[in-house]
């Protein structure tokens, strides 16, 4: 009924949360720098957010690559251009699908887990207990997770792209008989290290930063109740996904000359 009022309240809440998230980012980055010498904490988190996400990334990458192989072949064969299958599959994966899909899966698997973990630590007063033991949660809890998320996603994206290219090869060569040498050489010739691979890596680094930031902030900012943690976990997946897809457009436009 009171549309302008509600819109104003929503706007104020949005700006306040945005400000809080930036303040959190500054503290988290400071915590990350301080936690750098504590290598074992970072390794532990790399296992939690990286290694445990590998399975879903590898399986998804394989199937995505196989689908790309199928669809690519069906289209290319119309123009007798099936020899370009390797290049098409690799470009799709390295430029777009690798970073984007890996980031979406990472947000769903590792991001939600990070939010739930931090939110529950808050709800069960573990973070407050650390504070009272003169241990800064930003250094002990948030920092190592931030670094781990930042490192893990680019590696996972590279894995997804690599397995995807292999999936495309399995379909192209195994099912349709595209020559193995042609598949790999077209990929080698068509994929540029800087324009394609490096841009893809930059995207996954940016997505890793954003997803980990969102996940950790939502957990840290969660209302410390069951419902609050549940809502925060949902917000992590929704916000991260939107940020990834929106960010991908902006980055693609910047990198490939649209803007």
């Amino acid at each position: 009924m009171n549309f302008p009022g509600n819109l104003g309240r929503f706007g104020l809440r949005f700006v306040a949360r945005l400000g809080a998230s930036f303040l959190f980012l500054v503290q988290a980055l400071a915590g990350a720098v301080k936690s750098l010498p504590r290598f074992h904490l970072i390794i532990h988190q790399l296992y939690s957010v990286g290694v445990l996400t590998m399975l879903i990334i590898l399986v998804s990458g394989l199937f995505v690559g196989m689908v790309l192989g199928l669809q690519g072949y069906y289209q290319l064969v119309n123009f007798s251009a099936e020899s370009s299958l390797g290049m098409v599959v690799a470009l799709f994966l390295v430029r777009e699908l690798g970073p984007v899909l890996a980031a979406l899966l990472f947000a769903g698997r590792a991001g939600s887990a990070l939010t739930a973990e931090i939110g529950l630590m808050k709800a069960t007063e573990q973070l407050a207990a650390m504070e009272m033991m003169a241990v800064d949660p930003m250094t002990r809890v948030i920092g190592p997770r931030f670094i781990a998320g930042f490192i893990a996603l680019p590696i996972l994206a590279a894995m997804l792209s690599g397995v995807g290219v292999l999936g495309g090869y399995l379909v192209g060569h195994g099912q349709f008989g595209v020559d193995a040498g042609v598949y790999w050489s077209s990929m080698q010739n068509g994929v540029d290290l800087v324009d394609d691979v490096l841009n893809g890596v930059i995207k996954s680094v940016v997505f890793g930063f954003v997803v980990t930031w969102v996940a950790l902030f939502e957990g840290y900012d969660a209302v410390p109740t069951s419902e609050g943690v549940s809502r925060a976990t949902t917000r992590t997946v929704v916000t991260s996904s939107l940020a990834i897809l929106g960010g991908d457009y902006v980055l693609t436009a910047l990198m490939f000359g649209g803007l």
Partner: protein
Amino acid sequence: MSEVNMFENPIAQAKSVHFSFDQRSIFNGLDLQIPRGKVTAIMGPSGCGKSTFLGLLGGRLATLAGTIWFDGDAVPQRKSDALYVMRKKMGMLFQNSALLTDLTVFENVAFPLREQTDLPDVLIRILVLLKLEMVGLRGARDLMPAALSGGMSRRVALARAIVLDPKMVMYDEPFVGLDPISMGVIVGLIRKLNDALGLTSVVVTHDVAEGCSIADYVYLLDSGKVIGHGTPEEMLASTQPEIHQFMNGLPDGPVGYHYPANDYLTDLRS
């Protein structure tokens, strides 16, 4: 020891402290002193701000006005190195124990030592086992927190709270949800550790019988202020209506049982 002597050199004090939460006033001029080396019970009805006081004393919450003092210094109002230095002299037992769920009992107790000191593992092991023995859980060192009962969790948290040998330990509702045996153990431990280690203990509780059985001094809070204080005997013998009602658990008296509401009959008929 007379009351005057007890407060000669208090370890902590609140002076005209004001605090609000979500525009609801919790304290409006709180004044109290925590005597050094004693067990002080902070009592009062639920929602009167007992736990909030511990938050202010530990620097987790900032006052709106007034000052909290601890060991001669004002408690910093913002996260800072000075606050962390101060917290190394404090221990805290949270209501739900707040053990780190991904660490074993041993590692939970070792946590402050690993974070705050450069002691070698051999020494950390000895210190942790000493503290675990004090709370009777040396044999449970390899268990995870999920495998502990409520009483055991609280004892582990107690061992963790005293592992750095703090000057003061704060207990937030340490008797809630415990069976009679566990409660008896915790009550005994608070008194025993306080005397054996020369600590100061601040026990926030609404459990009158248990609180009075171990406290040297009692503060009763309500409506954002101290409404009564004295030794447990003085408090139990008090005829002041608010104190008498709370200390004897009476439903009728100046402390309202009902949350403010419209007239009952009008409400039912509407």
